[in-house]
Every structure is written in C-alpha cells, then in structure tokens.
C-alpha cells in the first residue's frame, strides 16, 4: 500500500495523533492446542494529540500501562485496535520500510541506563548504531565526526568515545542514551522514566539537558514518569492514566491546581512535599488497596472500587471522556 512521505509539521500543530488506541496482550494456555483464555488489557482505549514542540506528561502508578502506551505509539508493539499517526503517517498501514522511516522521526530514551546500553560496545558504536541502521552516514569517519558532535551536545567529553558503558556513571550513561536518540535528528522522543534511576543531584542535570535540546531542535516529548513533581516542572500538558485508560488530561497548572478526577486528586495528595510545615497541614486522601489486575478490569469506571466518592452509577456505566472546560478532559460521572 502506498504511504505518503511524512509531511512537515509546524510548531504547535499536532505531530502525534492517538485515537482509541488499544494494546492487549493475549494470555494463552495449553501446550499443543494453545487457546486464548484472556488478555492483559495494558492499554485500553486512549486518545490524545501531542503538538510539535510540546512535552506531554503521561503519569500513573506502576502497571497503569504508561510504558506500553509509549512503546505502542512508537510501533514497538503491534496495535490491537485504534490508530496512531506520526506526522501524518498512520502506523497501522505502514509496512516495515515505512516503520523504519518513522523511526527516524521518533526515538526513545529508556529508564534504566544500566540495562539499555550494550556493555560490550563502545560509546562510539552505541551512539553510531542508529546512523548505521538507517544507512545515514556509511563512511566510518563521517560517522565518528557525528558521534563527536553528539557527545558535545549532551555534555560528554569526546575523548571518551572509545570507552565502554561500565566506565560511566548513571547520569553520564543517560547522556549516552540521549545522544543515541538524537543521532538520526528525530522530531519526537518518548522519554520512558528517563531520570527515575538517577540521584536527585543528577536528575536536574539530565532534565535541564532535555529542555535545552528541546529548545534547540523544537523536539516533541512524550514524558512518561511517576514523579509528579518533576512532571509538573517539565511538561506542558499532563495525562493521568489508570488501569489502561486516561482519566484526566489538561495543562499542567490546571491539573495540579484544579484536579477534577478523584484519582488525580488522590495521586497528587499522596506526593510528599519537601516542606515539613506544609506537609503537617496538608489534607491527604489515602487510597485503600492496590491497583486491580488489568486482566479482570472492574466494571463501569475502573477506579470505582478505590474511589472515595463512588456511587451506584460508577460500577455500572463507563464514564464518558468529555471536555469539561476548554482543554480540560476528564472521564468521571461525578464531576
């Protein structure tokens, strides 16, 4: 099938469009006659746009599907249903060749800088790999020059080009991961918990680097994180996920100052504030229990078994995803 080449997207226009995206992982049983006995509904119908040059935060507790969402958007998992458009190209219809072309537009930075770099490769090989895969700079010398340039960009000394990952600290390794993502001049980067494995004093370095690179190259970020303080700092808009669905999506200050969904409210009130006087005064909503299993999703609103204000309708009907105030989307019967 013919797929149009990526169209250039102006700043503030939607670069990524996600519509009713679902990703289910089947659970199979039986040795020879395998049959599907259920599925893990990791992502169960999410819809949002990301504008060019913007940072969208995707937050939620572990197991809410935020990492799966990021990976599915990049085409790392096949889509179960729904659609993803990157710069006008639909992932669904793209064949391998087009997915490869898309990957030049869309890259990823991983959580664990210890696990995401091949320990037997030099920095030069790691950062140069995307260039080699995409046959961008076949000449070894030109490639090394580009790696040099990228290392300078992310604040690593090019003298270290032939070192191995174990010779670097966690923060420096994450810089290598950032340089690798930048190698093919992408427009869009999925940052999957890029700082949660780092110490506080190093986190700020990496966050500031990501911001500088965004300004310089008009990068668009999907910033997946569970650190809600950092998300408020770095993101323009924030989507709150719970058990495979987005329950609220709005501008950062609107979300943090006027959260509408009871889950967002509870999540925000659970974040500790580094101010002892304030934390003694704060009213906290402590949610009972754990996140239910994404295999047996609760009926109606998925949050209703833990919701402090749930009513009868919540267990019967799935709430509608609606725009309550301009730009403020929420899925709850009771707001």
């Amino acid at each position, binding site marked *: 099938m013919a797929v149009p080449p990526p169209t250039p997207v102006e700043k503030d226009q939607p670069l990524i469009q996600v519509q009713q995206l679902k990703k289910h992982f089947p659970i199979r049983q039986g040795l020879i006659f395998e049959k599907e006995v259920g599925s893990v509904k990791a992502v169960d119908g999410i819809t949002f746009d990301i504008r060019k040059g913007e940072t969208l935060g995707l937050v939620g*507790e*572990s197991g809410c599907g935020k990492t799966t969402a990021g990976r599915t958007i990049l085409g790392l998992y096949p889509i179960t249903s729904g659609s993803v458009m990157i710069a006008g190209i639909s992932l669904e219809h793209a064949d391998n060749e087009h997915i490869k072309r898309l990957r030049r537009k869309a890259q990823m930075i991983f959580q664990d800088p210890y696990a995401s770099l091949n320990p037997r490769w030099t920095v030069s090989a790691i950062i140069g790999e995307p260039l080699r895969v995409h046959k961008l700079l076949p000449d070894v010398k030109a490639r090394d020059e580009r790696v040099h340039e990228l290392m300078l960009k992310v604040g690593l000394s090019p003298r270290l080009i032939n070192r191995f990952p174990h010779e670097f*600290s966690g*923060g*420096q390794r994450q810089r290598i991961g950032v340089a690798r993502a930048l190698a093919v001049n992408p427009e869009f980067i999925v940052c999957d918990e890029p700082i949660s494995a780092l*110490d*506080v*004093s*190093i*986190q*700020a*370095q990496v*966050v*500031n680097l990501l*911001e500088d690179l965004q300004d310089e190259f008009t990068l668009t970020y999907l910033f997946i994180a*569970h650190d*809600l*303080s*950092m998300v*408020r*700092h*770095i993101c323009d808009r924030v989507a709150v996920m719970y058990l495979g669905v987005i329950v609220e999506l709005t501008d*950062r*200050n609107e979300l*943090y100052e006027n959260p509408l969904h009871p889950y967002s409210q*509870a*999540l*925000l*009130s*659970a*974040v*500790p*504030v*580094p*101010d*002892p*006087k*304030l*934390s003694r005064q704060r009213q*906290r909503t*402590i*949610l009972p229990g*754990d*996140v239910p299993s994404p295999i047996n999703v609760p009926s109606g609103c998925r949050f209703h078994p833990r919701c402090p204000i749930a009513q009868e309708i919540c267990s019967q009907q799935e709430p509608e995803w609606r725009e309550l105030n301009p730009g403020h989307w929420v899925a709850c019967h009771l707001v």
Partner: protein
Amino acid sequence: MDPDPILEVKDLRTRFHIAEGTVYAVNGVSFHLNHGETIALVGESGCGKSVTMLSIMGLIPIPPGEIASGQAFYNEQDLFKLTEQEMEQLRGKDIAMVFQDPMTALNPVLTVGRQLGETQRVHLGLSKDEIQKRSIEMLEKVGIPDPARRLTEYPHQFSGGMRQRAMIAMALSCMPSILIADEPTTALDVTIQAQIVELVQAIREQFNMAVIWITHDLGVVAEIAERVLVMYAGFIVEEAVVDDLYEDPRHPYTLALLDALPRVDRRRDRRLRSIPGAPPNLLVAPKGCPFAARCELVFDHCREEMPPLIQVAGNHHQAACWIDVTTGKPR
C-alpha cells in the same frame, strides 16, 4: 541533647577492602537517637547511609568489610563489643530492620506465616498456637485483610505494598525499641508510599518506638522525621530539627539538594538548579571536604581539611562547612 539517648554512635568508620583498593564508605559518623524519636538519614546512593546502619546491626561481612573505629551504645552496651551470639539475641528483638525491596528480603519458598513466626519462636520462645494468634494480630495491625488465610500464602502472592506491610509486621513482632527502615517505600508507588508512611507513624506512637528512616527522598523526610542527618560521601555534613533544615539549611550540599527539587505544589518559576559533577570516588582516601569539587562557595582550605561538624545555629543545628552560608564568607 537528651541526657539518655537509646542509641549513641561515636566516630564510626567502615571500610571495604576489595580488589581495586579500599572503599572509604563511612568516615567518622557520630549521632544519637532519643527514646521514641524519629530521625531521618538522608543522602544519595553510595553516601554510606545504609552501610552506617548495617554496621550498627553487625551485618557487614568481615572481610571484605572492616569497622575501623567506632562505638555504638545501646542501653549502655557497646554493640561492637558483643559476640555474634549476643548480637543475634538483640537483632530483631530490640532493634529490627525493614529493607528496601521486600521481594528480595523475604524468602520466596517459605510461607509468610512461617517467616513471621520465626522471630517470635527464636526470641520469645512462644508455642505454635501462641505464634499463630500473635501473627494474625500483627497482620491485622499493619492492615492486611483476611490475615489467617494470608499467613498460609507465599510472598509472590502478595502485592508490593502488602509485602512491605508483612515485612513491617515481622519487624514489629517482637516489639523492638528501635526500628530501622532502609528506604522502605522507594520501590513503591506514591499512593502505597502514603499508606506505609501513615502506618509507620501510627505504629510508632502506639509502641513508643524510636525510628531511623533511611531515604534519599526529601519529601518523605519532611513528612516523617523530627530530626534529620544529611550524609555525603560517608560524612554527616548537616544535622538539624526538621523545620530548621528545610527553612534554614546551613550546608551548601543541603542547599543545593533542596534547590534541585521540583515542587508539586508550586508553579514553575525557573530552571532546576543542577549540582555539577558527581559524588567523589570512595576508593580514594578522603582529604578535605568531599563536596569541595561540586561546591559553589569552595575556597582553598576546603580542599585541605575536612571541616568538623559544629553547632551553627540554635536547636543543636550543626553543619560541617568552613563557610557560613548565610554570609558566603569563611567562619
């Protein structure tokens, strides 16, 4: 200072002799803990906060470890002078510990009930029935529903938050007078973290226990601690009552750390202040102030001599810095 602290540590130095050389993990740490008090030991990975506690508990493998100096007085006995047998009597009974990762700290092939009963059998010499009864009580106290059935289950059948609750139940089962919590909420989500913090606070009041909470999270510290010790590269660099530490930090490292934190309750007003560089290599014997290489206020003397931890303000507010951060000039 309380005339009668329950635990007093003096000049603790712990080192590890490994193939690459000597790791200077803890370099002369002194502090005290009062009856019923909660203190927090804060610092980044590798600053020596866990090693400090493991040293006190006698859980450092020797070799490669070495307690090069120090005393740790608990009820007037020096823990470092006890035999392994005496220490075993004390561990779990008087001083109990909760670890960061409940999955690796629990034995996967024994039921939770068996593990919960073990400390009670060893330390209290209770019968089977008594243990069963007390175990159910303990699980109820830490908020685990359906405790009788839960006792027969294995750790993998528990969620992360429930495992941490079970760990806390184990630590509390012999009513220790000191609970050492080593990053007990780091592996958990914020909503579960809030549950555990609340649980420990409730239990501490109920049992009048003293708590040492080890963490890197300055948000959790603000919530739980009465007094805070800030560690960097094996040294305590600042000690203060919790309010003073956040309102009036006196060590450049504490200042920088608080500035590097984004706030969930405030609008963004600037870029984050990052601390340049990385913590020092602990394989090199410390000389001068360990923070000197990253410090904005550094001057020559800082690289020569480690400043002593001295009182810098009221309320026993102490800092180890040659500079008075309120003026930016040497003291």
